[in-house]
């Protein structure tokens, strides 16, 4: 029975990319105010049914000499569709739908289909991203200490609390919203290992029809 316990040991999370550390704001609203801010955000963002955007990811990993910049696009559609396309420096795609993970890269031009069950941590990451982009912020209070870093633009820092699954993996995650506080502009992730990532999102389209071919990664394989 205890075998379940170690099923996750194969699967690890590391958010990478270099970014300068930031100082947390000295002025932090109390819990009531934080709840109010999160509640307002949920109100602003909660109506999102689908989202698509381009991104630039700056990644600093200890394994590489220099910072690496990746660019691509991502797509999310309720209830469970998620697609992540990287265009440079490598061409690569990963799609999550119907409890399956599909991976493709230009080099091999092969699609690997993996069960979600075999990549539980990756699933957790995707669900976490869905929580952020679909605006389920109040539920994050169970797992994170939340602080307001700045109000204009609104930057919120999520620090894993002692009950969090991410406590020993993540240092923190910072999310920055656009001026209207209706979409995410930037996500910064710092790992305990020191690896860091910053995702800049642009040309964000909310509730616009997503090209169905986005979910059909198999068409890319020759």
């Amino acid at each position, binding site marked *: *029975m*205890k*075998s*379940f*316990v*170690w*099923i*996750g*040991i*194969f*699967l*690890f*999370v*590391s*958010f*990478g990319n270099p970014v300068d550390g930031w100082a947390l704001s000295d002025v932090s609203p109390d819990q009531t105010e934080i709840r109010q801010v999160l509640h307002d955000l949920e109100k602003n963002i909660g109506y999102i049914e689908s989202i698509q955007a381009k991104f630039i990811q700056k*990644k600093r*990993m*200890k*394994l*590489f*000499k*220099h910072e*690496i910049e*990746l660019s691509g696009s991502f797509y999310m559609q309720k209830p469970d569709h998620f697609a*992540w396309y*990287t265009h440079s*420096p*490598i061409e*690569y795609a*990963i799609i999550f739908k119907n*409890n399956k*993970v599909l*991976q493709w*890269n230009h*080099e091999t031009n092969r699609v690997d289909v993996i069960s*979600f*069950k*075999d*990549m*539980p*941590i*990756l*699933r*957790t*990451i995707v*669900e976490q991203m869905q929580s952020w982009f679909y605006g389920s912020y109040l*539920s*994050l209070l*169970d*797992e994170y200490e939340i602080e307001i870093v700045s109000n204009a633009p609104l930057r919120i820092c999520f620090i894993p609390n002692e*009950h969090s*699954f*991410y*406590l*020993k*993996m993540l240092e923190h995650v910072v999310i920055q919203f656009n001026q209207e506080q209706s979409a995410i502009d930037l996500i910064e992730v710092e790992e305990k290992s020191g690896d860091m990532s910053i995702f800049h999102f642009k040309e964000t389209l909310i509730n616009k029809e997503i090209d169905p071919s986005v979910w059909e990664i198999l068409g890319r394989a020759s």
Partner: protein
Amino acid sequence: MQASMQSQFRFERKKQIILAIAVGLVVLLALFSLRSIKLTNDIKVMLPQQENILQTFDFFRKTPLAGNVFVSFEIKDSKEFPKLISAVDQFSASLDTPMIKSVVTGTDGVISYDGIREFVRLAPQLMSEEELNVLDARLNGPFIHKVIKKLYRDLLSLSGLVMKPVIEQDPLGFQKETLAKLRNLATNMKHNVEIRNGHLISRDGCHALVILETDISITEGVGAKALIRYIEDALLELPTAVSADLIAGHLHSLSNERVIKRDVFVTIAVASIGFLALFLFLFKDIKALLLFMVPIVSVLISILICSWILGELSYIIMGMGALISGIAIDYCIHVYVAMRSGQTRQVAMGEITMPIMIGALTTVGVYSVFLLSRIPGYRELALFTVISILLSLGFAILLLPHFLTNNPGKIAEYKLKFRWTLNIPDKYVILIWSILLGSCLLLLPFVNFKTDVRQYDGSEESIFQTEEKFDQDWEVKDRPAMIVVEATSFNEALERNYQIQQQVDLIFDNESYNSISRVWLPESVRHENLVRWSRFWKEGRYKKLKDYFQTYSTQYDFEENAFDPFFKMLYLAPEEVKAFEKLSVLKLIKPRFAFETNQGCQIVNFFEDSEKLVEKVSQASKNWPDAFVVSANQFKQLLSKAILSETTFLSLAIAILIPLLTFIFLKNLHYVMIALVPAITSVLVILGMLTCFKITLNAASIFALLVVGGLSIDYGIFMVYQSYKQLKSDTRMAVTLSALTTLFGASTLVVTKHPVLFYYGITMVLGILSGYFSAVFVVPSLYRLIKQDNFPTEPCQTV
């Protein structure tokens, strides 16, 4: 003359008082001794004593796996997921008792992160010579270039997030196969569990699993009760959106105990009330209470004698006490009816003693056959019944008449008469009976026999429903078969397990054999592998590989020291065999495969429970003195086979014994054949009716079937005896009352909740009804029809 009779009657009264005091003292002594009787609630008594059956049964019952308690938390809407996680955490944190050894809710991220790296670092000691040869063939420039290019691509992809720790430690994927084995061990589970947020979550995201490990055995009544109460109390604190189901073997044993205690109380109470009502309202005679007292005293003394002989008595057998009392009372009824036939004690007893003894000894003969059974429950019940019947017979013939001797002036007032007669010609009675038997015979090919041992589990329905729900929620797969290796210590068991695995691998492919030996080799083997590993790299391969990496990794902007952990791994010291055993990953695996036992340690290996594989492995296991195969399917088959052979043996023995005994007592073949009619009728009607109502036969109903055959022949003997002896006492009345009392006993079992008692009861009811009607109506008709042509004019002699 009248004065002389009155004087005799006064003398009898004095005798009655002395006898009553003597019996009363015996009863008091028996009641007092009851306190010291050891009772058990072990369904093992219903299993044939065959080594592999008992071994499998004991394993299922005693394995620590069976002792685990599972708590399945549920939310109705997956959007409430954070609440589910929070409820699990709060519940786990609230558990603080020595009764619970550990609480498993999921996996710890850091243990996983560091643990897997450390596992990969030390895994070279798992590599065999063949694997090193494969590796050697890959140590060339193009291959290394290809690998480094792939590493770069993987690290920049989203899935690279997952692979990074392994890539750092093992860029060439030396341990890819070992990790796959580890993954295989994890995924070959019977529950469909995913790890989300470090918790064990069902695929629909609406359930979380918590496993509580405890040392409290499922059969430890008081401890189990305290444990379950503690957990249930902790679950009271759950938020309203979250509910929880408890799955534990402990619940079964507690429930079984509750059900059996209730059933015993109900059967004894209902049977007592029924008997009392029958005697008081039908006989309208306070002395009829004595008939009720005789079987009680007999059963009471039998319990004591059996417990002295056997050491302990089963609750199930105690539950059947009510039925036994129904059988034991038969002889008293015959005595009572004879004593109310209007004749003197001497004349009445002279008439009835012989058929009573024949009936009792035939029944004792039937039960005695069960003393040869390989099923201890049968033996226990047989002993109990034989003693009860003999005591009852003794009381009925030797003691009871003294208490029933009436004032001579009132004898005529007490006369009982059976007035229900059929006004149907004999040939029509035989025709109806033949049609009934014919119909039952036609149903015989459709008789079903059930061997699932779970049918003896009398737990309350809610427990089974919760388990069914659990199986659905967690998509529980078929239970695997197992090879269990036993040794005095874990290391010894591991060594033996590895040797067995080598042989098992020849039987079927690696994938389908889920064994800890895939990733945890014995120390001696690991040491040997490590020495070979070090030698391998010292032979110039280290430098060659380092050069390739320097050449190609710079092309992809890797740091020069990016793969330092990997190159350190190539010089793994032989002492690291000790570090391997401390791996956190293995500490997590071990509890699933290895268990401490009273004898030392048991290692369990899993494989698909298919007939073909189990057969092959079982064959091979004959050479493994310290290992055995456990298969639920094989267990069912073995049980089925054993019970079938048991039933065949007992049936044959009884089929020979009953006519033989009857012939010895009646000394006439025609009489014997007629006397057998009720027995044959009851057996065929039982089989036909059970099939008709789609009730499957099991060990309990088979036992009842054979017993009821023995009882029915009593009715046959009495009716034949009555027919040719032309007795003055009303045998039909006595048989009717006998059947009624037995029916009372059996009917009480039909309302019980425990399946063993229920199946016993339903079979007895069907058998007694058919046996009785055929005895009272078919036997006399048959006697009259056959007598015209074949019987001698003079009554035959009996012993």
